[in-house]
């Protein structure tokens, strides 16, 4: 079977757009270019109709009412709107937010911002498998707590948090529950009613839609949730997000959601089989470790550490053929490896030695087979030139070596 190089296995960063999505979008750039807020002519009506239809397609994927979808520029904006919007709207009720250390930066940095504005934020540690401790969550709740913000599926390790249980705890204490579901929506069944979610952020470009569009789900009943707008203007999106709607991208987002809904069952099965093949082959190597909970995990994600080999050096062995991401941060000024892997309790050495695999709709078995061989060969080659591997083989405990930190 032919392989189209380079092989793309970084689908957690972004996905290629499905050609069917592009096809749906094209008319809305040129012939059907109207402003969905123009009420006086057919150009506006056509655009509004297209947005309404897309809103239904999006709503159907997550089982909500179309009116509960607030279109944004992406998940980062939706995260900001949910956190800052709730913090401001519910200020009279309290100022405490609970989140966890493995959240995406869009959540963590927004929480830091809220702290500067008088908010209190608790960052829950996660267990070694990446899941949060529900007892710890409940113990952290105070009378001032207004929001629990825990992600659905993690972008680095793919671990799926116990969403229903978290929602039940939030409900019991009359606290809102927000989840960043960017990696989960479209990949696994996400049902805001069954899951008990009050607010949820997600994005089109992680599910074969265009970049620059996402949504915040905001529950309208039981309870009716409101967020303070973070952008002032024409009062679009029920007053929660002003700004002319990005009609072509919203149309694409809708189509992407529809395709995911229709193809999810078969696709999740196919991807988890490919992911397992990759993971089983690579984890059979000496000193290779799969990071994160194996059972509660997104079907298309695997994160594996190859001890005694540095991640970026490893990527260099095949980066012309395979596009992958590493938890190593040799390129960053701080030289800090992945904070997510460190939050699991991994030593910096293992965090530096990790690769993140994100499979996707266009990943083929031939690509996985090629990847297995390429990684195996490179790991073996680099271990031959790794002083740490030599020391490990000699039985030296690396923790006892007095390293010259720089």
């Amino acid at each position, binding site marked *: 079977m032919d392989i189209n190089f380079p092989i793309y296995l970084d689908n957690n960063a972004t996905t290629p757009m499905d050609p069917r999505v592009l096809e749906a979008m094209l008319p809305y750039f040129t012939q059907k270019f109207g402003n969905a807020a123009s009420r006086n002519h057919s150009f506006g009506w056509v655009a509004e109709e297209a947005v309404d239809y897309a809103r239904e397609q999006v709503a159907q994927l997550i089982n909500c009412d179309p009116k509960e979808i607030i279109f944004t520029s992406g998940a980062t904006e939706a995260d900001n709107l949910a956190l800052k919007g709730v913090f401001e709207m519910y200020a009279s009720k309290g100022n405490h937010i609970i989140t966890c250390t493995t959240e995406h930066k869009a959540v963590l940095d927004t929480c830091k911002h809220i702290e500067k504005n008088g908010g209190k934020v608790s960052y829950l540690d996660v267990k070694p498998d990446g899941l949060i401790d529900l007892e710890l969550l409940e113990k952290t709740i105070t009378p001032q707590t207004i929001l629990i913000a825990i992600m659905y599926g993690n972008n680095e390790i793919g671990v799926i948090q116990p969403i229903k249980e978290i929602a039940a705890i939030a409900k019991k204490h009359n606290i809102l529950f927000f989840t960043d579901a960017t990696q989960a929506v479209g990949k696994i069944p996400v049902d805001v009613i069954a899951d008990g979610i009050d607010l949820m952020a997600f994005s089109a470009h992680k599910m074969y839609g265009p970049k620059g569009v996402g949504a915040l789900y905001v529950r309208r009943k039981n309870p009716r949730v409101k967020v303070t707008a973070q952008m002032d203007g024409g009062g679009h999106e029920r007053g929660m997000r002003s700004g002319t709607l990005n009609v072509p991208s919203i149309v694409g987002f809708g189509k992407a959601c529809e395709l995911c809904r229709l193809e999810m069952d078969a696709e999740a099965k196919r991807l988890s089989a490919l992911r397992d093949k990759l993971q089983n082959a690579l984890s059979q190597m000496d000193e290779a470790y799969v990071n994160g909970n194996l059972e509660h995990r997104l079907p298309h994600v695997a994160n594996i550490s190859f001890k*005694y*080999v*540095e*991640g*970026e*050096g490893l990527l*260099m*062995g095949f980066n012309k053929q395979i596009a992958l991401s590493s938890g*190593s*941060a*040799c*390129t*960053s*000024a701080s*030289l800090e*490896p992945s904070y997510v892997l460190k939050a699991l309790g991994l*030593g*910096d*050495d293992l965090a*530096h030695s990790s690769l993140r695999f994100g499979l996707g709709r266009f990943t083929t078995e031939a690509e996985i087979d090629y990847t297995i061989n390429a990684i195996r060969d490179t790991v073996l080659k680099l271990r*031959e*030139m*790794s*002083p*740490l*591997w*030599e020391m490990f083989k000699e039985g030296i405990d*690396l923790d006892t070596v007095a*390293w*010259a*930190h*720089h």
Partner: protein
Amino acid sequence: MAYSEKVIDHYTNPKNVGTLDKESKNVGTGLVGAPECGDVMRLQIEVDEQTHIIKDAKFKTFGCGSAIASSSLATEWLKGKTIDEAGKIDNMDIVEELSLPPVKIHCSVLAEDAIKSAINDYRAKNGLAPIEE
């Protein structure tokens, strides 16, 4: 970030990967960096005790492509130099030769440290005063 061709060449065909007998009196070993920092270099030199000329040099490196290339290049430069000449190799020479970008300068610093550390290990074994690291 794109790597320079020289970095890619050293990474693909590293020169002088290997191990010398660290117990030997005329072998100096420098082990620098730390696993937590994402790079560890071990550089070894075998020195002619009469002339103080480096006869052989070997390295093993755990790190990114630039770290591997920096140490591979260092071993090439060391061979044939006296230990005094070797001690004058500056990390910026490595930066220039490999066209390392600013975020990778620490790789060259590590290589310079490894060279000096290997020289001083040899000097200590042979009753010579250390050079400044």
